[in-house]
């Protein structure tokens, strides 16, 4: 390894004396790594342990705030074609010149993009 790299000491050593099993023994090269359960799976696998889910916050009781997707101003209007919210005619003009990709991106930020299956 390059001298610079050794000096910087950024790589975790392969062999560590304080470990009973080394990482390379536990996770040999080339073995599939997709064996960790994701949070959703963990929660589904153990329905007796609902505490993590139970403390989830409830939905808000306040009216949903509607802001312009492009500018962030208060948005009284919705464009029926793209479903984007907008503040005024000026923004509307800019909004109509967006590409489908951009429109999709704006919608996906607030989780409103149509799902393509």
């Amino acid at each position, binding site marked *: 390894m390059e001298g610079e790299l050794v000096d*910087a000491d950024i790589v*975790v050593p392969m062999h560590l004396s304080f470990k009973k099993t080394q990482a390379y023994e536990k996770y040999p090269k080339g073995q599939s790594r997709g064996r960790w359960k994701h949070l959703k799976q963990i*929660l589904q696998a153990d329905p007796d342990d609902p505490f993590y889910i139970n403390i989830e916050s409830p*939905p808000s009781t306040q009216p949903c705030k509607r*802001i312009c997707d492009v500018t962030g*101003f208060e948005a009284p209007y919705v464009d029926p074609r793209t479903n984007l919210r907008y503040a005024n005619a000026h923004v509307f003009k800019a909004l109509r010149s967006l590409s*489908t990709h951009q429109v999709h991106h704006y919608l996906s930020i607030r989780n409103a993009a149509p799902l393509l299956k």
Partner: protein
Amino acid sequence: MPIVSKTRRQTDYNLFPPSVPIVIDNGASYFRIGWAGETEPRVVFRNIVQRPRHKATGETVTIVGDQDPAMMKFFDCTRSGPRSAFDSNVVYQFEIMEYILDLAFDRLGASGSAIDHPILITECVGNPVYSRSKMAELLFETYGVPSVAFGVDAAFSYKYNQRHGKCQKDGIVICPGFTTTHTIPFVDGEPVYKGSCRTNIGGYHVTDYLKQLLSLKYPFHSSIFTWEKAEELKLEHCYIAPDYVSEARKFQEGTKEAEEKTRYWQLPWIPPPIEVPPSEEEIARKAAIREKQGQRLREMAEAKRSSKINEMENELHSLHFLVKQLDQVEEDDIPSFLSDTGYTSRQELESTVSKVTQALRKARGEPKDEADEFEENTDSNEKYPLINVPDNMLTPEQIKDKKKQLFLKTTTEGRLRARQKRNEEELEKERRNQLEEERRRENPEFYLEEMRAQYKEVLERVEQKKRLKTNGSNTNGNQKSGNVGRGERLSAAKRERMRLLTTAAFDRGKGEDTFGAKDEDWQLYKLMSKDHDEDDERPDSDEAELARLSSRLQEIDPTFELKAEGEPGQASGEAPRVRPLTEEDYKIVIGVERFRCPEILFHPNLVGIDQVGLDEMAGASIRRLPHDDKELEERLTSSILMTGGCSLVPGMKERLECGIRMIRPCGSTINVVQAKDPVLDAWRGASAFAADLNFLGNAFTKKDYYEKGEEWLRRYQIRYNTL
């Protein structure tokens, strides 16, 4: 305040006796490790792992935390981005967790055969027992740790601040973290987890929101908005507006205050080289060169022409001479005489003479005399003597000649007719122009108005047709941005053709094949052919009319502007493409984004998370408490502590106080305080907790873990009051 990583290797590990616990704050963004009883963690780094390939040796190495980008050039990172052991706020990827612990213990200076110290490690509220047991297993089995204790970071932070008199034994801790935000009520100095609340939003979402907004606002520069850059911008510029709507209105109206609050970030910009207009001398010199070259070409062409004329003259001369000679030759000797010259008959010779004369005339630039042609016309009977003679009176040779004559006659007549028609059209045009001119003189304004209306109508028609041709349906919202959608790739005509082709391909062999029984069936092939265009009925007429109208309007109307080709009035989506880039295009304006991004902590539905925000969470927590004790509620709201990295955003305290006041009964005491150090207090609280003599009573050993079972581990909870 950016968090500083500390990864220097410690040397005093062996000075600590095995009784001193190691304290770990395992946060989703940063990992902190140090010794119990100390005030600062020894090692701090970002809780991420990369496993790139070392370019020189080809082996996979492990790199933990943020690293100097200059060092990364030795690695091939194309197949491994930074990864985290966390899903939301729960550790699930224990392989990554192991690499992180490896580095942590290594940097702490561990060198023996095991980590011979009790460990206190933080976890989230309500950590699933799966994650907790895996973590305990990892510590016991791999590192040989004697005992382990788990605690909640926000609770440690609250206890630490309680100890320093910032908050009371009854209160609420609000902890906006990296991926989640928690509120935990405290009663008698103990956290009541039943009353806690979690919203899945945190600093990560704020940064991500900022990153996405900026890259959408500046698509041209989207590559510079990396996650790290966005994080930096967030820490430097974001604040929480006391009232979002009124703050946004200030920006919308462009008030002076808003202008002062807008931040600018000028990206490095190099002005493009300015083209110096050529000096007059230069222009003159170039013109002279061009002139000289032109002159030479002209001379060459002239020389060529004259030589050609010369040649032709000579030929003509010799031909004339031949004809003259022929006159003197006896009729019978003609064939033998001509055989030497290559001609077969006198007529052929004469026709060659006339051809050469014509060509010579043309080369000299003399006008073709039309009298000849007219003459030809007048005595067509003489010219084509064979036409009116019946076939049966002619020899086969003469029949051939007759056919030739017939063809010649029809073509000349056709030409004549065309010329006549042209003349007529010209006359018609002239007449119409005169008529219009008269009308214009009568009432110029009305006439102009009429012309404009006509022009508009025709223009519309032409454009409509053009649109139909290029873009079959206008239902998709963005015909302007080019061919994006799948349906827009084919024009209507092409689509129709495809349809016909496919039906033709699939219809065969289905039922009785009656194709061709009717004559119309064959029309199909015409429709299918590539050259077929949808309607050729009057496209030319419209376009010609448009050209006429526009030229007419240009003559008489000074205000008239010819509409440019393409879409009229098209808004330019990406301006920087069309014009040269200026410094202005390289200026990133961060205005509304400054408070729009942290606003999602209070209104998570702005990013599509349907949960209550920070202020309402406090109310929800109080409601979840089992008691219905007004006095306790009063005590809780008078001691609200904010901790966690996100509570550092300016304006948080005021907004939180205001928001909680709105949901609490009128006249309640509301007191929000910020933790001494929202980032490090959790570790400090944990450190103080572990330093207490009672700590081991809260920890459990490997033996406990295996004997007591999962159900016990599920209910395991430390008592914070020892602090």
